[in-house]
């Protein structure tokens, strides 16, 4: 069940120049959360910022009752988050949204992630590996220094491939090129994608051409995160072909790629 809770911060540490990891003691959330879901986080007890911030679940540890988050410092709210100390309490709502789903039959899985979109794929990889699937992880980053999660994926037993914009690590170029090549070499049962919109669009195109089912996690500016304000919509095509808006916070953030209509 979705809940608003005050939970204890167990850890809040810088992991990369622009990224922090926050670990929360939240047994109830850990018990229910599914990879791809997110929390709404209160970054301040004052009226500035006014709204909570959506952050995806990065790792779920049911045994320890902890949830880990990875957040990038981009503005006011995330900057305030970096000031919180272990031991302090923080208000959250969660787990929220529709996470990734998978089926028994799928054997070979590819995860494509970029930027802070890599964070939720770690929990997903863990769950997929546990169900015995072969998991390839394709990661995109501007440069080596900004690459998130590589070691974690490797520890989980995934095959990791990297593309960087500046060639400072792995392939120079786009992560989508890695996907393109892999899809020509391997039979892929399912692609999961989370990252910047241009990356997601490219992944959707490639998987569509290659007839690979694909789930994408979307971002949109959120008011409430719980489905009440209809603020966070994305354009979808209904079965009858007409256009509608669905809520990213409630109907997503994970969507089947075929459902979503990208503008431009």
């Amino acid at each position: 069940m979705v809940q608003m809770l005050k939970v204890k911060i167990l850890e809040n540490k810088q992991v990369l120049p622009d990224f922090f990891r926050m670990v929360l003691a939240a047994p109830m959330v850990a018990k229910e959360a599914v990879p791809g879901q997110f929390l709404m986080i209160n970054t301040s007890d004052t009226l500035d910022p006014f709204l909570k911030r959506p952050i995806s679940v990065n790792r779920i540890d049911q045994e320890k009752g902890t949830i880990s988050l990875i957040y990038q410092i981009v503005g006011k709210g995330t900057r305030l988050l970096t000031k919180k100390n272990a031991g302090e309490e923080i208000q959250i709502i969660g787990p929220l949204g529709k996470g990734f789903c998978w089926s028994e039959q799928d054997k070979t899985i590819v995860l494509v992630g970029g930027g802070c979109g890599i964070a939720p794929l770690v929990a997903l990889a863990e769950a997929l590996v546990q169900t015995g699937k072969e998991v390839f992880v394709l990661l995109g980053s501007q440069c080596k220094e900004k690459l998130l999660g590589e070691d974690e994926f490797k520890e989980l037993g995934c095959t990791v491939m990297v593309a960087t914009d500046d060639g400072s690590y792995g392939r120079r170029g786009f992560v989508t090129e890695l996907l393109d090549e892999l899809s020509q070499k391997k039979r892929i049962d399912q692609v999961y994608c989370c990252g910047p919109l241009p990356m997601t669009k490219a992944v959707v195109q490639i998987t569509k051409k290659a007839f690979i089912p694909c789930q994408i996690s979307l971002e949109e500016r959120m008011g409430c995160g719980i489905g009440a304000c209809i603020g966070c919509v994305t354009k979808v095509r209904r079965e009858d072909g007409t256009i509608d808006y669905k809520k990213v916070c409630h109907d997503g953030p994970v969507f089947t790629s075929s459902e979503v209509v990208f503008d431009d």
Partner: protein
Amino acid sequence: MINLSVEIAGIKFKNPVMVASGCYGFGREFSNFYDLNLLGAIMVKGLTLEPRIGNPPPRIAETPAGMLNSVGLQNPGVEGFIKNELPWLKQYDVPVIANINGHSYEEFAEITDRLAGVSGISALEVNISCPNVKNGGMFFGTDPVMAGEVVKRVRAKTDLPLIVKLSPNVTDIAEIAKAVEAAGADAVSLINTVLAMAIDIKTRRPALSNVVGGLSGPAVKPLAVRMVWQVAQAVSVPIIGMGGIAKAEDAIEFFLAGANAVAIGAANLSNPMVAVEVIDGLKMWLEQEKIEDIQHLVGGVII
């Protein structure tokens, strides 16, 4: 025993704390957090005659101590509401107030007609002040003659209590309030959102796809309190005050300014428990101040 109940336009509310239209959907999301029976009333998302898909995203932007929205009245239409939302709401013992919207006098009349006989609706909130739809919306709420005409058309179609929702985007809100009172409004609610704009300097585009949107949240509270106070001097119908309420103390300001009840909008989005917190806080404050009836507070500001 503190008496929190109020009667407005012939309806009994168990307490004077309502949730504002558009910030509460049709209530389902909040039923995860608390028992909706605790509320004074639910003002549902703005309804139109036909279903609407609303404006493209982004629809939300945060501003200092507030937010902009340009949802653009995405809603299932009056029929969809009656079929899919109202039956669910009826399980609760809470007055449901239907927020109605039209592009034309005729449309206002028609949507009223459609809702008039339906059981489970306690009152209509006539929204002549939505800044987020082109042609209509706020337009009607900025002119006393047009505002009065909308109310007359709606009045002619139903005996349901009419709450008319006023726009803050006017030179003289008291004048509009008087016009709708004269036209048959049983109560007024105010304020709707303030027409506003934010620009994302990185993309150099408006923060909202609709260019402009409605400002609400704590930032607008001082404007809303002023308008409630002005309207309270001008009309004798009850007032439902709103605009920036995020805690019990805020609600008390509105009562003192002359509101008979209050509604909470944007704060539901930042804190889903806010309505219950305000109700509890109000009770505690009244006890502490030894005020037996919330009505003794109404208009109590000492000038």
